[in-house]
C-alpha cells in the first residue's frame, strides 16, 4: 500500500498542473489527468526508473452518459430493510469517486450497493482514503462524458496503474501514444471505432472491428442495442 501511495504522491509532485486526482479502490491505483498532459505523463511513466511502466496492457474508453441515472440503478424500495438481530453492519472501507457530473448519482456505500446493510446508510461512508482536489477535479472535468482509460503494467516493479483522461463528447480528441507503446495502435483504433474518440497523431485511424461504411459508434450509450445496419454486398 505504501508503494501505491508513493506513486500517487510522486505523480502529484511531478505534474501538479496535469493531475486531476488519484484514488485507490479495491487494490487498484488510479490517476486522473488532463488530456493536454497525456503524452508528457505517459512518457514519464514509461521512462522514469521509479515507475517503469513498460507494458500498455489495455486502452479503452467508458461512456458515462447514463451513469447512475439508469432505472436499474435506483433502489426498488426507498427505505432499506433493517438488519436482523444477528447481523452486524459491514463497515465501508473504501470509497470510489469519479469526476464530472455527479447530479443524481448514488454514492458508494449507499443502500443500493449493500442490500442487507440498513444501519450503515446512516453511518455513511467515512472520509475518502486520499485527499483529492475535488473542486478542481469537478471544475476541470465537467461535461466529461467520455473517459479514455489506460491500464499500465510495470514488469520490473510488478505494479499496475490505471490512467484516466476525461474527454467531452463534442471535442473527443486525445493525443495518441503509439509513439510510446506500439500496442496503442490497435487499441486506439478500437476506441475510435466503438466510441468515436479521435487520436491525434495515430498513423492509421480507421475502424477495426466494424466494417468501414458503418455509421455511428456502437459502444456509446446513446447507440441503441438492437439497431441493425446490415452490410449489403455488391449490387452486381
Amino acid at each position: 500500500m505504501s508503494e501505491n501511495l508513493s506513486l500517487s504522491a510522486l505523480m502529484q509532485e511531478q505534474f501538479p498542473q496535469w493531475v486531476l486526482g488519484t484514488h485507490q479502490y479495491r487494490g487498484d491505483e488510479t490517476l486522473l489527468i488532463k488530456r493536454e498532459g497525456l503524452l508528457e505523463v505517459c512518457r514519464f511513466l514509461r521512462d522514469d526508473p521509479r515507475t517503469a511502466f513498460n507494458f500498455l496492457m489495455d486502452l479503452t474508453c467508458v461512456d458515462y452518459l447514463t451513469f447512475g441515472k439508469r432505472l436499474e440503478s435506483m433502489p426498488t424500495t426507498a427505505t432499506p430493510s433493517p438488519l436482523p438481530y444477528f447481523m452486524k453492519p459491514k463497515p465501508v472501507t473504501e470509497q470510489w469517486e469519479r469526476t464530472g457530473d455527479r447530479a443524481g448519482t448514488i454514492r458508494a456505500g449507499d443502500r443500493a450497493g449493500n442490500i442487507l446493510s440498513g444501519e450503515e446508510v446512516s453511518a455513511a461512508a467515512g472520509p475518502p482514503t486520499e485527499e483529492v482536489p475535488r473542486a478542481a477535479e469537478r471544475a476541470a472535468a465537467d461535461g466529461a462524458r467520455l473517459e479514455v482509460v489506460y491500464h499500465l503494467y510495470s514488469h520490473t516493479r510488478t505494479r499496475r496503474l490505471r490512467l484516466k483522461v476525461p474527454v467531452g463528447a463534442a471535442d473527443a480528441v486525445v493525443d495518441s501514444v503509439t509513439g510510446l507503446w506500439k500496442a496503442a495502435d490497435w487499441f486506439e483504433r478500437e476506441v475510435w471505432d466503438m466510441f468515436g474518440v479521435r487520436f491525434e497523431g495515430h498513423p492509421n485511424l480507421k475502424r477495426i472491428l466494424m466494417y468501414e461504411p458503418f455509421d455511428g459508434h456502437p459502444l456509446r450509450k446513446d447507440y441503441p442495442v438492437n439497431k441493425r445496419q446490415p452490410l449489403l454486398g455488391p449490387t452486381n
Partner: protein
Amino acid sequence: MFLNVGPSHPAMHGIVRIVTELDGERIVGTDVEIGYLHRGFEKMCEREPYNNAMPYTDRLNYVSPLINNFGYCMAIERLLDIQPTERCQYIRVIMSEISRICDHLTCIGASAMELGAFTVFLYMIKAREWLWELIEAVTGARLTISYGRVGGVKADLPEGFAQRTKQAFEDIRRVLLECDTLLTRNRIFVDRMQGTGVISKEDAISYSITGPFLRATGVNYDVRRQQPYFVYDRMAFDVPLGEHGDNYDRYLVRMEEMEQSMRIVEQALAGIPAGPVQVDHEGRVIPAAMMVDEAKLGHTRGLKAVEVETDPTLSGSTKRFHGLINSPEKRAVLPPKEDAYGNIEGLMHHFKLVMVGHGIRPPQGEVYAAVEGANGELGFYVVSDGSDRPYRVRVRPPCFTIMAALPVLLVGDMLADLVPTFGSVNMIGGEMDR
C-alpha cells in the same frame, strides 16, 4: 503482388483477413483485418445482470472457456470485495489448468496439421477428448460450460474425479511423448518452425504481448507468478522460457506448459480441502428417482432420513456442497435449494438476488482483474454504477495485441511461413473480436 489470405481460408484459425504484399515469394507488407466475429459482447453485458454474462464469457476464448469464466468472476468478486472459499479456489485452479491444456493441445495440433503432420493433430484431439470428458463430468458440458458463478462455482467436483484425472493424465502424457517424438526433432518441422516468425523482446513488450508468446522471447512474465490469484501461490510450477522468439520456441514453450499444468492439477488435487461427507446417519444413499418411486408406492417410512443422490452436476445447489464451494456472501450467492424452498429467510434471499430490480449490486466503482489465459493476460475491466447490471465490461483480449504484431512477424519471411507463424499466434476469433 497483393495476395489476399481471405477471411474464409482453411489455414486460418477462425476468421481473419491478411492482405499480403508479395515480392515473389517474400512477404514485404501485410495488412490484417479483423472483426469478423465481433458479436457485441461488451454491449450485451451492459444489458444483463452480472451472472447472466457467464455464457457470454464462455464464448470468448472458446477453447479454454473456464479461464474466461473465472476471470470474469474474479473481477466481480473484487468489486464486491468477497472471497471465494478455499475449496472453490482449488477447483477453479484445477479447471483452469485443464482448460489451458485443452487450448495448447488445440493450438499445437492445428498448427502441426497445417504443416502436414495430420497424425499429431489426431493424437492431440484424442487427448483433448479425454480432458473434455473430465470437464463434462464436472460441469455438465464439454465446451460452453458456464461453470463459474460470482462467489463460487456451479457445482462441486464429482466423486472419483481425482482417480479419473490421474488416469487421463497418464494417457495424455503418453500422447504428448508420442507427439514430441514425432515433431520436436523432425527435420521438416524444425526447418519450417525455427527462425520463422521471429519477434524481439523489445517489440514484444512494446506491443504488450503476453503469455507463451512473450515467454518464448525470454521475458519472464506470467500472471500466475507475478500477481498470483486463487491458490497459485501455493503451487510449485516452472514457467518455461524461450530464447529466440521464433515459432519453434513457442511450440516448445507450449509443450512444456502442458506438463506444468498437469503438475499444478496434481498438486491441487492433493492439497484440496475436504469434500462433502457423503453418507447420512444410517449410511444409506439412494438415487432420486428411486426415492420418488418408493414414495409413490407408499413406502415412506424412514424415507425422510435417507440421503438422496442427485445429479452430480447439480451438487452445488444442495446444502451438503453449498457451503464448501460458495462464498458465504448473501449479496451475491444464491442460497442452497433446501433453504430456498424450506424457510422464509432462504426464500427472501433467493428473491433478492433473482428478481428484476434486485440482484447483485456492487457499490459504484471499477476494477481490473487479470488472469493468465492460454494466450496471455486476459483482463476484465468492470465499471459498476451501483445497479444490478454492469455499467461497462471491457475484456482485454490477449491475442488482440499479438495479431497487431503480425506484420512484424510476417514481413521478411516467405509466404509459406505465414502458415506456421499464424498457427503459433493461436488467434481465437471469439476472444479477439468479442
